[in-house]
């Protein structure tokens, strides 16, 4: 499949995961916004979640 996209996300994900301090951002997973997005089944209303922050705040 090498003629497919040159973007290789798995390498980047490994790097991001290694750098991450586990537990530090778990509050996000507990917010009602995240939970509604994650578990709202097929509803189109809660389909898009956008996390915005300043540079270096750790969005990745």
């Amino acid at each position, binding site marked *: 499949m090498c003629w497919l996209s040159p973007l290789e996300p798995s390498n980047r994900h490994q790097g991001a995961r290694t750098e991450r301090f586990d537990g530090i951002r778990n509050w996000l997973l507990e917010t009602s916004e995240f939970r509604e997005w994650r578990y709202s089944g097929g509803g189109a209303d809660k389909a898009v979640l*956008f996390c*915005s922050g300043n540079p270096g705040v*750790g969005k990745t």
Partner: protein
Amino acid sequence: MPLTARNIGSLVIDSLCDRAQEANIAVVGLYCDSLSQQEQTTTNIIEALLKQLVGRAGIPDHLRAAFEKGKEEFGGRGPRLADLMGMLKTVIASLPQVFICLDALDECLPKRFPEILVSLRDILRESPGTRLFLTGRSHACVKEDVQRYFSRAVVIPISPNPNDIRNYVEMRLDRDSKPEAMSNDLRVDIVRVILEKISNV
């Protein structure tokens, strides 16, 4: 900057992937990177998502045929965006639920935002159960663009939290390669000064 280590996108992707099998969901995603802006075309992004989705289930014959055809034309022109979108929509519609995560969207070229977002909106219209997770800088125009194309998008602002910073600095100090060179007073000072500096940002 210590806070770059706190990775919202990878956290969300991991939390989804950890339960992907039992929850019967498929998770695909990309980390955008300002160093790869030329490569981050809408076509390549859609291709990458398609590649991740079909990679897990083997490549359907019609996809293989489309790519083989693309390789023959003009000595290797890939499928066009419209073809890829059609394939991606078909694959997504055949799955119970797909989560798409695009991290650091603001690192793509701003002129590409509309095409990328329109493509994602098309996918969601076709398969309304699909979930889209995006991250981006609050000061970049990406937030306005996201809200323009997804008027019901839920926005979560990510701001430095003093507790998170304290925990992170403590973790880094615990991992210091020469802990004996640091007295407890110095350690307390380091944490205090960093927290003061951050609160002034």
